[in-house]
């Protein structure tokens, strides 16, 4: 919608562009209609299902707060896993992200390779990594850390790269003009500009990893996500509600920390 059309000047502009836009819109619309059929979208169904939602929610209330003491240990466990998983991911993602940023990459080939690695890390699901690392190091939190690290690296690397592509090129040019080494340009010219995004992404990913129940369940690492799934499977929805509250608390604390650090940096 907000595409710049630098090349089109003069009267030809209106008609040509209108046509182009109408075509794109028609295409989009038909994709949506097609997908709506494929997914059986139906607002009526949703509205009719309303009492069932209420019924479901009513079974969650009141939350069974008595289980909260039992949740402390799994929560801490998951936090620890997420800390290491995310940190390793960050360490992996930084070089990949730098190489995959079009405006910073030393060579187009390196750019392509970095992008492919990042895509592959994201394409291989956490579960597959989980199985591989269970085979390697056995059950427990450690394979969980490794699986989360690899998959998260794919996601973080992509985000770093695109944040770097968005920066103001002025300061970077200025530092290059002083004859600074590429690494120095990155540390002094790029890092301060992407720092807020960096914080957002990393803490978001950390939070995501705390909730990563499926992998951690698969590798036998337990944690708060495991408790959540178990409570749902046992239909103890009042417990589920408590667990969700604990997760909400964690998320809120992290969100608060993130916003404090960011407001300091921005």
């Amino acid at each position: 919608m907000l595409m710049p059309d630098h090349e089109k000047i003069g009267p030809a502009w209106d008609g040509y562009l209108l046509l182009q836009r109408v075509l794109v819109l028609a295409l989009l619309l038909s994709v949506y209609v097609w997908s709506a059929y494929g997914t059986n979208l139906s607002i009526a169904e949703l509205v009719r299902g309303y009492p069932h939602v209420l019924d479901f929610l009513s079974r969650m209330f009141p939350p069974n707060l008595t289980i909260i003491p039992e949740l402390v240990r799994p929560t801490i466990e998951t936090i620890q896993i997420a800390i290491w998983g995310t940190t390793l991911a960050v360490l992996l993602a930084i070089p990949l992200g730098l190489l995959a940023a079009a405006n910073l990459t030393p060579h187009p080939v390196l750019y392509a390779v970095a992008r492919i690695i990042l895509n592959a890390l994201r394409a291989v699901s956490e579960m597959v990594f989980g199985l591989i690392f269970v085979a390697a190091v056995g059950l427990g939190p450690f394979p969980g850390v490794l699986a989360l690290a690899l998959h998260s690296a794919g996601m973080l690397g992509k985000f770093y790269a695109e944040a770097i592509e968005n920066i103001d090129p002025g300061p970077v040019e200025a530092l290059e003009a002083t004859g600074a080494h590429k690494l120095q340009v990155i540390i002094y010219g790029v890092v301060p500009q992407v720092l807020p995004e960096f914080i957002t992404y990393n803490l978001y990913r950390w939070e995501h990893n705390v909730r990563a129940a499926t992998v951690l369940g698969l590798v036998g690492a337990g944690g708060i996500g495991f408790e959540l799934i178990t409570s749902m499977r046992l239909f103890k929805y009042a417990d589920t509600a408590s667990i969700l509250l604990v997760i909400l608390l964690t998320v809120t604390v992290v969100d608060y920390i993130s916003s404090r650090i960011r407001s300091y940096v921005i």
Partner: protein
Amino acid sequence: MIRITGLYKEYPNGVQALCDVNLEIGNGEFVVLLGPSGAGKSTLLRCINGLVRPTAGQVEVNGVQVGAENGSNLRKLRRQIGMIFQQFNLVKRLRVLDNVLCGRLAYTPLWSSCFRFFSRRDVELAKSCLERVGLIDKAYQRADQLSGGQQQRVGIARALVQQPAVLLADEPLASLDPRSSRTVMETLREINCQDHITVIVSLHDVDLAMEFARRVVGIREGSVIMDKPVSQVTRKDLEYVYDGMATEPSINSGTYGRTEYAHA
């Protein structure tokens, strides 16, 4: 020695910013670039240190060809060329002192700059440059908390701290009051005379240009249309460069675009 031969620059959007520019600037010269807005002054300056890659033609600085070089050779060349940017190009989230210290990066070992360690000498030098532009009391403020003129002076300090052999200054006075402008120009003259630093500065203030330049280069629509020692520059020449200024009614009493006002 800067030798520019047959320089062309066409931007990707088709704008022809430079068109067959040929220039030779000796060591220790003080050259002012004059020209209307959009003439190509910034583009020319940016070609000299390789920030803009020319479409055709060559730039040679002290015998080294800009653009053919890369990696550590390019860095070594750039280390000798300081640049003051028209839009300041400060790192806004860094403190003023850190911004100035950035000018010393090329002299700092990689490993220690990673930890933001600068030698005591560099810090002293940076502080003295800040003093020179009158901003020592803002050293620990973030760059984005400064007024326009203050930011411009930080950009100037960053170029000075680099202690370059060639100084490219792109409108270094744009946001400065007359007094600061004068101080900056005097600083430029000082380093030019005392340290034999080549200074190439693009200016819009014709009076200051006439006062400080030793050679004036006029650019118009991407081409050099005037290149003279300052003593030979006439009013006509300037009119020619800016085109149409002669027709302005307010030029009178031999001064250039200026009216008299009351004296105390």
